[in-house]
């Protein structure tokens, strides 16, 4: 078997006395599209933060292409080829769309912290930026300030920044949250196209999206993965149904506070 793109073993995370991630094991093969689902408060975002460097694991290991990344700084993980998006749009709102994507491109093109070059004259950066803008369909809005974009376009821009650095492992955190049905369809098509040949890990609430896109699905409940498998296996798993439906009922009662 080839080295998994991402390999998680015995991962735990405590916040004080509260155990949020209680031992996660997961291997994701290169090129796989993997979805993580689970009720609110299951620890999905925490898991993402542990993988991408936002949090330090309490114990356990996270390996990216065989290299340990648990506790490594986010920018270092990013440079190793892992990139993520955020649940709430996390873009550079004072910049134009083009500049936003360019921020995502710069480091990977080797321009890091350079202060002797004019960004306007970096031809390959311009080309790469244009290519990405084109691929996500934001080319005609490139000169708009990002803050003025409609919501769905901001979500698209979020994805564009995420893939801009050319990372081969992509983590998307609820990319279609808050989108209308038609917007969601377009977003799914975009994600499929943009992550062609890459490893994709996605957290999503919209089951249509999950089952339509994922090669495999993991179900995270109370900080543990209770099931991993192909979509049809998960659909039929009674434990999943129980955990999921039971919790969804609670969620309605609580009023859906995130």
């Amino acid at each position, binding site marked *: 078997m080839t080295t998994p793109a991402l390999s998680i073993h015995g991962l735990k995370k405590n916040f004080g006395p509260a155990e949020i991630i209680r031992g996660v094991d997961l291997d994701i093969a290169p090129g796989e599209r993997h979805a993580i689902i689970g009720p609110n408060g299951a620890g999905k975002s925490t898991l993402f933060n542990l993988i*991408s460097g936002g949090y330090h694991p309490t114990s356990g290991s996270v390996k990216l292409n065989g290299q340990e990344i648990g506790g490594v700084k986010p920018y270092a993980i990013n440079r190793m080829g892992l990139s993520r998006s955020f649940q709430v749009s996390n873009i*550079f709102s004072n910049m134009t769309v083009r500049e936003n994507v360019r*921020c995502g491109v710069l480091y990977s093109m080797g321009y890091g912290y350079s*202060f002797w*070059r004019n960004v306007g004259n970096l031809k390959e950066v*311009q080309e790469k930026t244009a290519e990405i803008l084109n691929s996500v369909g934001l080319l005609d809005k490139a000169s708009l300030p990002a803050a003025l974009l409609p919501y769905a376009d901001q979500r698209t821009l979020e994805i564009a920044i995420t893939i801009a650095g050319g990372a081969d492992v992509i983590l998307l955190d609820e990319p279609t949250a808050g989108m209308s049905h038609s917007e969601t369809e377009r977003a799914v098509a975009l994600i499929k196209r943009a992550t062609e040949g890459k490893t994709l890990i996605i957290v999503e609430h919209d089951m249509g999206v999950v089952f339509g896109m994922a090669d495999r699905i993991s179900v995270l409940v109370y900080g543990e993965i209770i099931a991993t498998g192909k979509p049809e296996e998960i659909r039929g798993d009674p434990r999943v149904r129980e955990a999921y439906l039971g919790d969804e009922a609670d969620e309605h009662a609580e009023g859906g506070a995130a």
Partner: protein
Amino acid sequence: MNNPIAQSVANLAPTGGQKFRQRVLPLIILAIIVVAIPFFGPSRTVYALLSVMGINIVFALSYNMLLGRGGLLSFGHAVYFGLGGYAAMHAMRAIEYADGGFWAGFPVFGLPIIGFAGGALAGAIIGWPSCRRAGTPFAMISLGVAELIAAAGFMFNSIFGGEEGISGDRMNGPELFGLSMGPVSDVYWFIAFWLVVGVGGMYAFTRTPLGKMSEATRDNPERVEFVGYDPQRVRYLVFIFAGAFAGMAGGMAAVYFEIFTPEAVSLLPSGFVLLMAYIGGIAYFAGPVIGAIVLTYMQSMLSDFTEAWLLYLGLLFMLIVMYAPRGLAGIIFGVTGSFSNGTFSEMIGKWLQQLAGAFLAFLGLIVLIEVSVNWSNGFGEVFEPFGLHLTFANPLTWVLIVVPLALGILILRRANRETEEVLA
């Protein structure tokens, strides 16, 4: 560019003409103004003011690399101005007493380079612990460091020269461009040269990958981490550059004043550079330039008219913070912007109202402040504009205070209410 997509995005970017108008033209205009001034035969006062403005423009712009572009509020930026200036000052003395060797061949004209290096070094050392955090912790560390350096300024006489500082003579070493550096007009050319270099350099910096990422870090440090950048490293590098350009301004000041005293590293100039940048407008590159010009004039000339100039300065600052957070540049660009997008005719009525209101309110305030100041001094003098004899006992005084003030505020409120109605 053989890639059609790249071609189309290139079209979206500003055209060559736009780039020229927005980026290169202002610099050329600046250079022309700077070159043209001496032909009007300015007096010593004008030369002095212009030179100090030049120094302060570079200083304020370097500050804005932190505050405006990097989102880092510093209360100790004068430390780098001062240390750079001291480095240049020591170098000037080395040139004066040089006996062959490196310094004998170093022109005084080039001292801002030494200042630049000194400021960068200081920034690199002090920035290392300071830049780990942004926001309030950064501001507080800068305050603490500034206090410590200011105290050290009075302790280490070999570096800072004690209370009287160290002085030198700029008329030494090899001459450059045929400038003896003696007369103020020679020094003017020196300041002008480095002003253009400094402004150009700092503008160019905003266009570099690091400059862009500094803005990105200001807006969203979290996201920056996830596109491969270490925000601490970005801040640290920007901090070094800000220190370096402040040091360059210090080097210019060393040559102009030929003296540096520990007061230069104290909290006062650090506060003053903050005022310059903020009043000018930190959101615009030109903002600190405007702020430096206005405040330098206020500092050196307004004190001739009124000893309450600090109060006026404070009031101006408060008004900007409360009602025009984009600063003087924001107001100016608001007006010029309305020409280009055709809203000028709609807005002009409101602006005139606001202007009239502000003018009246200001008039009342001036009478109040001036009469108060004269009353406070209490040595027989009263405020006597236009032959009026105003004291607190004179009812006319109160009329002149209350009527314009009330009228002005009323007009201002009306103007603002109208805009709100229009918006609603």
